[in-house]
């Protein structure tokens, strides 16, 4: 099982002839991901690392049956690339591109919904189901197959935590980097539901950050719907409060998005919050032990 991606995932790389696209296509292929196609308008018919390149996503999907796409195109063109994938019938799009304008994301959101396309990112490191499919820029070697589901708004902080889990012998079912942008695709709630329903996931790690109220919402959702053990960590407890968007920023989140509030919300939902990343394996072990009683 696992969630979202597995050994049957057929991946398309949009922007495969670019520097990052080519580099990470090679990494993903090495890891064992089934990279079936790439796109690069004007380079259709070529081949990169033995992967056929198409002019359009539509052609790529029709020819190779790709069902998942990863996007490496520069930020100004990322929203259009996501829509191209969506209209071509791709089920899951992972947008790595960093610096996508917020209004671009707002504009494409209802289209993705209408087309039934799932999105992860933008500005995210991607996701991995260890030993099956690595889709993103995550360092494959630190992951280990197992039963912990992990989702995070951060990149290297995720690797830090995963590294600790792996060293503690706790493998992962699927690890998802949801990205740090204000308006993004799949978020905690959708992923919590997937992990809850995934028989291979036994416990869940949620890595949050200050800003917004996604963690508060996740806490409320967990209290209501998640029976599996969850452990959380919040980065940014000491971040300066001045860095937010005027009055309305505070108003909209109906809370000020501080780490303190988020930690309080998790506490209220019975989710232990690690004081530092190195505590996470221990907290998980305790939770799992209790759950198996």
């Amino acid at each position, binding site marked *: 099982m696992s969630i979202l991606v597995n050994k049957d995932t057929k991946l398309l790389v949009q922007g495969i002839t670019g520097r990052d696209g080519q580099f990470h296509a090679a990494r993903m292929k090495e890891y064992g991901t089934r990279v079936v196609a790439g796109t690069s308008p004007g380079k259709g018919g070529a081949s990169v690392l033995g992967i056929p390149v198409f002019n359009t996503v539509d052609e790529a999907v029709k020819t190779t049956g790709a069902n998942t796409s990863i996007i490496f195109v520069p930020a100004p063109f990322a929203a259009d690339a996501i829509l191209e994938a969506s209209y071509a019938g791709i089920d899951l799009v992972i947008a790595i591109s960093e610096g996508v304008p*917020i*209004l671009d994301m707002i504009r494409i959101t209802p289209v993705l919904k209408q087309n039934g396309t799932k999105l992860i990112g933008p500005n995210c490191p991607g996701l991995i189901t260890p030993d099956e499919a690595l889709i993103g820029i995550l360092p494959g*070697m*630190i992951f280990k197959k197992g039963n912990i589901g992990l989702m995070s708004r951060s990149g290297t902080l995720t690797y830090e935590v995963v590294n600790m889990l792996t060293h503690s012998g706790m493998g992962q079912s699927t690890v998802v980097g949801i990205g740090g942008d204000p308006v993004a695709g799949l978020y905690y709630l959708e992923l919590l539901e997937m992990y809850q329903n995934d028989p291979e996931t036994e416990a869940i790690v949620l890595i949050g*950050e200050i800003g917004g109220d996604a963690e508060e919402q996740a806490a409320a959702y967990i209290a209501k719907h998640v029976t599996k053990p969850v452990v959380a960590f919040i980065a940014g407890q000491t971040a300066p409060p001045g860095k937010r968007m005027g009055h*309305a*920023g505070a*108003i909209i989140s109906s809370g000020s998005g501080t780490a303190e509030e988020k930690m309080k919300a998790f506490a209220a939902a019975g989710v232990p919050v690690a*004081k*530092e990343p190195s505590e996470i394996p221990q907290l998980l072990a305790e939770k799992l032990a209790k759950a198996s009683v």
Partner: protein
Amino acid sequence: MKIHEYQAREIFKKYGLPVPNHVLCHSVAEVKEAVKNLDRLVVVKAQVLVGGRGKAGGVKLAKTEAAAVAAAGQILGMDIKGCQVEKVIVADAVDIEKEYYVGLINDRNAKSVTLMVSAEGGVEIEEVAQTNPELIHRFPINPQTGLLDFQARDMAMKLFDDMKLVRQAADIFQKLYRIFIETDSTLAEINPMVLTPDKQILAIDGKMNFDDNALYRQPEILAMREADEDELKEIDAKEKGLSYIKLDGNIGCMVNGAGLAMATMDMIKLYGGNPANFLDIGGSSNPQKVVDAMNILLSDKNVQAVMINIFGGITRCDDVARGLIEALDTIKTDIPIVVRLSGTNAEEGLALLEQTGLPTVSTMSEAAKKAIELSKR
């Protein structure tokens, strides 16, 4: 990116929003010229990029030439939350019957632009949000249709009964939405929007922020940028591929990744230290980046120790170590530095760093403790 009130007023006017006239002045002399033969009430307002200028005395009414000049004299040069006032506007004052709040913002939850209006306008809107959230009406705008006439009218009816005022307000909401979309705003506020005794609705103060990621397609907005010293440093860092925010502590941090950088700051605090900054060098082992980062970091005179925290992922730790060695060669400093390397090829990296004589560790906690210890020497 933030802009001054006078700049927001200019954008508002361009789009036809009702804004009282104002004159921008950089000196008392300019104010004197602007208020010659003054025959009406004016308001002299400090132009700074921080909030709270009213409470700080940066906004003063004046009825005579002399009073206006005196007010400008007091305000110009004033320090408001660390910002020195270099400009004021002299704006026509209006009689106010009632104040309202109107704001547009990118809404993370609704994944849309959300219009917020309240009959409780003025500076205390944040307090209203905390204590009486039901007094703030929200409407998430469908990006595919924009703010439809009837929706704008519905929202205006929450503030006014008189249909003439409803239509005026609805028109303002729609124009503000157009501004928001066409300028890639992240915030567009009219606070307060006021009703005058002769039943006119006016935008008395405006605040706008813009999406930094969209500035590439907003040359007119970018041309309005007037950053203060701290922001210039942040912008400079951004151009070098770094993300830097200055803080008040004494332990400088250099980390790869924003989340890890925040967690690093938290860790320093957890063990009793005080971080001097947030600094994310991103995912590269380029020595030049390390040099740039170190220079920015050390330009803060408060820094007494530096913690370098790198988690090697795709970028291998031995490559990062080589970059660090090269970089530290060109940087001469007495400030103690502790390096933590972990992840891919961490052992090779740590071995390479031995030649530098720098203290190296392999976990964040150790690094934080060591940096704190070094800062106290």
